[in-house]
């Protein structure tokens, strides 16, 4: 490296896209306007299983302003795009009469105005042959797939170790189906120019949307351009290219005009995935002095009928503790539910909720402080392969977090702390997060006026990518930050991976660093004056046999108050200590952790997508009944960063987008036990279960 990373990398630079966002001037996909833009509205299935026996479109076709109505009878035949690292593409829409879930798209109406399209969609009449849907994992008709993605893992002899363990915990935990609910409704604006397709899309992965659409329509990827410079949040919902994206592009092709398809809030619940519900059984074996001798973790969770998402719950705990005997088993159960997806820390948030609550049960059983129990079982090396972690900040997270929180001022016995008539509880959880990095490309261009442009197809969904790349390039190229322009969210730019899996920052910073190094090399070797100088760079996950790449670590501490009469539960204080490797920008990184913590609070206290038990229809598909935290629900959140650059990659970053969410629900559940003596093993931690 020719330049040192200073003074901007690591500084609390303001968000460089902030001025546009506070002005309402950042263009999200639903802000895109074309002069001849038409509007699409969807018709969705109102049964969970069966087939469409008839669909009447005459009324809609004759309604004012309607340009077309497309159903499975009239839609062009489509292919399925290529699979990605997170699994196959969703089933192409409008290709048959089968209905696999309530909310499945059955028709699209395109009209000159939004109001006309929606009014006409209401006139489409659908008749069904209804089958009995499979809605519960316990249903004997449900197809079960053990070890569906080959992530299951076993080390040692967990069954034997459990049999002989001095102390055992055996508990079952449940987590509900959750819906990401980014505030920006997912929108696709599609426009064809001959065989060239341009889409403005709410996606976290422009390259995936491009390859999905190219595959669907059988055209070369080069003819598809996907734009997502700003996205109104994602939290994992934008990792797949959902059926509405295809519908919008199909509709635009049929009407020969640009078409905007903006999902309604209810459609967001069935059309953009979510966190699947889980039922998890955990068995722990321990010595009387708190050494874990066995962890056996089993999880079952639903998958949609004609869909597949690479997912893992129990294997997420494999590296968490130095336990010689470990088993992780996942089972996917096919149900008539909407396609599942990913939601911030997918699998990890559910799996570690169960594991961290079970450890609290063990700590209570052993009469050992929960922090001390975890410290006795810290995995100093990766227990899966014995390799040393590239960084090990977990102990530091416990120490610093406990100190800031005042953990040791806790009176250990449940029900022993009070504030007036309210019961007070302290709880905590530890987090070992997985490491992810995907190949990435970026370009750096130096302009004759001395300014520079950094370009990559990655999206910034609010994580701060624009800003940290500005900081990085300014340092590497020795420019003031406002001389650096960062272009993102466009597939014409060098290909980047998804803004997901907490892996983008490592990938994109290392690629930009490489591009800047290559650029400086060209500049040093001399170049014609008055022209742009451009260099590309790339990064790829290092192949290392000697070390285990460590993801972020965290320790979360929560204080709760419980009103014993009402059962009312309030979280009054949260402290999270995080080892995130190199922190590119402490202000923005802390925002990520605060945001994750608020998401975790929703998971702990209120979020739950509730299907009707008989029909499978989601009963609370709106933001009035699907509760997400409001301002008054959120207490002070204290974030501390520990550790430093991780030696695995030149940039030394680990990613902090998801780790913040993971430990909150178990820390709160454990605090509830401490406050009340009640062990709640089901999320959300509803008040009536506290009475």
């Amino acid at each position, binding site marked *: 490296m020719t330049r040192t990373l200073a003074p901007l990398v690591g500084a609390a630079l303001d968000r460089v896209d902030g001025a546009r966002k506070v002005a*309402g001037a950042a263009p999200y996909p639903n802000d895109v306007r074309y002069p001849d833009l038409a509007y699409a509205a969807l018709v969705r299935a109102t049964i969970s299983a069966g087939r469409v026996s008839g669909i009447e479109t005459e009324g809609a076709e004759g309604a004012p302003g309607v340009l077309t109505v497309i159903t499975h009878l009239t839609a062009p035949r489509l292919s399925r795009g290529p699979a990605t690292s997170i699994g196959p593409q969703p089933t192409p829409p409008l290709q048959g009469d089968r209905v696999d879930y309530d909310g499945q798209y059955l028709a699209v109406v395109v009209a000159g105005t939004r109001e006309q399209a929606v009014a006409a969609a209401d006139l489409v009449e659908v008749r069904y042959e209804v089958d009995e849907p499979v809605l519960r994992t316990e249903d004997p008709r449900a197809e079960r797939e053990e070890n569906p993605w080959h992530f299951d893992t076993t080390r040692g002899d967990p069954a034997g170790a459990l049999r002989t363990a001095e102390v055992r915990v055996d508990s079952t935990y449940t987590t509900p189906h959750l819906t990401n609910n980014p*505030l920006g409704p997912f929108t696709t604006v599609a426009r064809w120019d001959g065989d060239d397709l341009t889409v403005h899309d709410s996606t976290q992965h422009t390259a995936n949307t491009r390859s999905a659409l190219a595959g669907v329509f059988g055209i070369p990827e080069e003819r598809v351009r996907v734009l997502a410079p700003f996205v109104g949040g994602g939290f994992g919902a934008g990792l797949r290219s959902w059926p509405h994206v295809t519908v919008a592009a199909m509709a635009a092709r049929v009407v020969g005009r640009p078409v905007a398809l903006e999902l309604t809030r209810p459609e967001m619940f069935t059309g953009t995935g979510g966190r699947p519900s889980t039922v998890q059984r955990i068995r722990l074996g321990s010595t009387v002095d708190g050494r874990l001798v066995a962890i056996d973790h089993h999880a079952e969770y639903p998958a949609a009928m004609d869909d597949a998402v690479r997912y893992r719950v129990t294997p997420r705990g494999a590296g968490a503790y130095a336990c010689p005997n470990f088993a992780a088993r996942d089972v996917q159960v096919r149900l008539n539910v909407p396609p599942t997806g990913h939601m911030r820390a997918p699998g990890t948030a559910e799996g570690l909720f169960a594991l961290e609550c079970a450890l609290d049960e063990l700590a209570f059983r052993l009469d050992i402080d929960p922090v001390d129990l975890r410290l006795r079982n810290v995995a100093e090396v990766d227990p899966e392969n014995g390799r040393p972690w590239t960084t090990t900040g977990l102990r530091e997270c416990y120490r610093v977090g406990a100190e800031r929180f005042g953990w040791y001022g806790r009176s250990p016995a449940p029900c022993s702390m009070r504030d007036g008539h309210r019961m007070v509880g302290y709880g905590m959880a530890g987090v070992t997060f997985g490491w992810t990095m995907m190949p990435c490309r970026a370009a750096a261009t130096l302009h004759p006026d001395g300014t520079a442009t950094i370009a990559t197809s990655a999206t910034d*969904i609010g994580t701060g990518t624009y800003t940290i790349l500005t900081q990085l390039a300014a340092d590497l190229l020795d420019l003031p930050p406002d001389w650096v322009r960062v272009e993102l969210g466009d597939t014409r730019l060098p290909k980047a991976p998804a803004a997901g899996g907490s892996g983008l920052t490592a990938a994109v910073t290392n690629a930009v660093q490489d591009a800047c190094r290559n650029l400086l090399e060209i500049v040093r070797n001399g170049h014609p004056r008055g022209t742009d100088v451009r260099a590309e760079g790339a990064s790829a996950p290092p192949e290392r046999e000697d070390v285990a790449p460590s993801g972020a670590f965290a320790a979360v501490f929560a204080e709760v108050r419980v009103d014993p009469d009402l059962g009312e539960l309030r979280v009054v204080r949260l402290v999270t200590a995080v080892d995130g490797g190199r922190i590119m920008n402490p202000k923005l990184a802390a925002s990520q952790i605060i945001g994750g913590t608020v998401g975790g609070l929703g998971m702990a206290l209120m979020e739950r997508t509730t299907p009707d038990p008989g029909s499978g229809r989601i009963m609370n598909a709106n933001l009035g009944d699907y509760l997400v935290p409001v301002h008054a629900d959120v207490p002070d959140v204290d974030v501390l960063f520990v550790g430093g650059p991780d030696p695995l990659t030149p940039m030394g970053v680990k990613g902090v987008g998801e780790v913040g969410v993971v430990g909150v629900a178990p820390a709160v559940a454990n605090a509830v036990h401490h406050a009340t003596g009640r062990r709640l093993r089901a999320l959300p931690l509803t008040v009536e279960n506290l009475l």
Partner: protein
Amino acid sequence: MGPGVREPTTTVTVNGARLVANLDARVTLLDALRDRFGLTGTKKGCDQGTCGSCTVLVDGRRVLSCLTLFAQCDGRQVTTIEGLADHPLRAAFIKHDAFQCGYCTPGQIVSAAALIREGRAGRDEDIREYMSGNLCRCGAYPRILAAIREVASGAHA
């Protein structure tokens, strides 16, 4: 046209500019601003009055533009985020990193501007309470609180 049926022409003053439009009676103020007048700073998050992203000021009071028909705004003064160009909340939101994806931000700022003018931003618990109609799914609430507190106390000056 019978008695009481108003001419469909609606005249609204938006951010100081007089706008006259003859729209389908179904059009909400939100869709009129976004689809007809190109003022896309006001955001649609739910269209059901549950998220606050579409908050605008009508005659100085904060309202949800998704629950307000455009035709109801005849003769009214509407202020959107675009009309708060010089408001100190903008800088305070940037300084305190009071947003991430930025989608709820226009609604938060418009709502906060009204809150400060209502004189109810003196205490943290009041800011939390009276900003609870504006969801932030990125979870920036503690930062939003800090930004509003600073502007309300005059500390930004």
